[in-house]
């Protein structure tokens, strides 16, 4: 196997005085979809925060593209080719759809590709093109999620982190969002997906990690995990 695009080694992360993550090891290889599943409060979002650079691990290291990025702030991390669709989409509500997307290509290296990036995003989400002049705050939940994904793609990342993209969406839209993630990954993008919707995320991913109480309790190929008794019982309600 070739070198991992993202390599997280034995990181501990604390929020205020509480240690949230313990000795996390995680690897993502180029062009993979990797998912991290686990219950609410297991530390999934914190893991992404620490990867992106919002939270600084007090131990361990994060390596991206062969470069140590432990403690690199997010505004630098995005320049290295990693970006995140934050939990709850967090579109700029007072800005138009177009301005939201343009913000996605704020960094100089992606600004030069802005036009073609916009075309690509509108190809994925024709709906956004129809709403181009509307303010972010007027969009529906599903459209906001599309906008947030589109905005992330605008930076032309090599690794896309997704934090609970299906959260709060109607079942039909959940399916649509997961289909889009597969389509996006098919273009060669590497995806690290954090989800509570275990069924769908195992289905679309190649490998998965199970995070409970801040520790990785299981990991392996998603297909195998889907048939694992523990996973079936705890997460898939089978």
């Amino acid at each position: 196997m070739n070198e991992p695009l993202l390599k997280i080694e034995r990181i501990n992360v604390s929020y205020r005085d509480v240690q949230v993550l313990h000795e996390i090891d995680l690897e993502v290889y180029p062009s993979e979809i990797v998912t991290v599943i686990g219950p609410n409060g297991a530390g999934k979002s914190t893991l992404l925060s620490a990867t992106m650079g919002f939270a600084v691990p007090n131990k361990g290291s994060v390596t991206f593209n062969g470069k140590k990025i432990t403690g690199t702030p997010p505004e630098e991390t995005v320049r290295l080719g990693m970006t995140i669709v934050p939990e709850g989409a967090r579109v700029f509500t007072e800005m138009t759809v177009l301005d939201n997307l343009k913000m996605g290509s704020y960094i100089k290296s992606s600004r030069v590709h802005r036009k073609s990036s916009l075309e690509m995003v509108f190809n994925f989400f024709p709906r956004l093109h129809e709403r181009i002049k509307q303010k972010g705050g007027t969009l529906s939940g599903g459209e906001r999620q599309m906008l947030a994904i589109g905005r992330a793609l605008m930076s032309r990342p090599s690794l896309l982190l997704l934090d609970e993209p299906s959260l709060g969406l109607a079942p039909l839209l959940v399916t649509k969002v997961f289909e889009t993630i597969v389509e996006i990954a098919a273009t060669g993008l590497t995806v690290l997906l954090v989800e509570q919707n275990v069924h769908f995320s195992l289905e679309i991913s190649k490998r998965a990690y199970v995070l409970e109480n801040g520790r990785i309790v299981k990991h392996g190929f998603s297909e195998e995990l889907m048939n694992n008794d523990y996973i079936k019982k705890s997460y898939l309600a089978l």
Partner: protein
Amino acid sequence: MYTVFVQTIINGLLLGGVYAAYSAGFSLIFGVMGVVNLAHGELIMLGAFTSYWLFAYFNLDPYLSAPFAMILLFLFGYVVQKYIINRVIGQPHIMSYILTFGLHLMIANIAIKMWTQDFRSITTSYSGANAAIWGLNIPLARLVTFMVALLVTWVLWFFLMRTETGRAIRATAQDKEVARLMGVDIRNIYAITFGLGAAITGLSGSVMSPFVIISPEMGLEYTIIAFCVVVLGGMGYMPGALVGGLVLGVAQSLAATYLNAGVSVAITFIILFIMLVICPKGILGKGSVA
């Protein structure tokens, strides 16, 4: 009777234009950073003094020295934000009050040491000039300031809406964490924003200099008015400063004509009080965020 009324409204609008000119920067700084800049009036003072000294030594017309005031104040604001105010960003609001109040005291007192407490004024050929049209008096210098207020609001709006940096400023104002995810260095954006706010405030001080009294201690009263104007128009909403300024100017002018001059200041605070009770988001209902 009719002429008096129209004259009162015109005076009010022109006064309001002056208010708007020097309040826009206050609104911008609050809207983007949530910092209530209690040293705002000192920026006006520094702008006015820039014009004063250039006039005193080089006989340079205040309107021609205005660009110098802008550049000087931009640099001043940028440095103050980058090296001083950025230290309290993200801390409770009270920290920025204490810090900017300290800046207010320091700047005013250093200015007194350097320039003494003397009241100064710039007397130009047009200082007292009025245009008389249909029996109405229009003070020219104030008219120019009014135009500057309109221009500043428009240019600022355009800058915020149409440029990369403007867009980044708006993004930072709305969600600074996500702005960072987009690759925005928010500390630099803060410094630019404060610089811009200081620049347009310095510009207003400069274009006001032909008709106001200039002294190192002039700042505080302007800070108070700017605060009222911005609360009236909606904190952080750019066109709000213009609307708030005009409303306040006209109200004060009407009070001065039909009640008495002493009441006009009281009117300011009565309007502010009512506004905060019934509509804290400002007249246009669009508080915060550019």
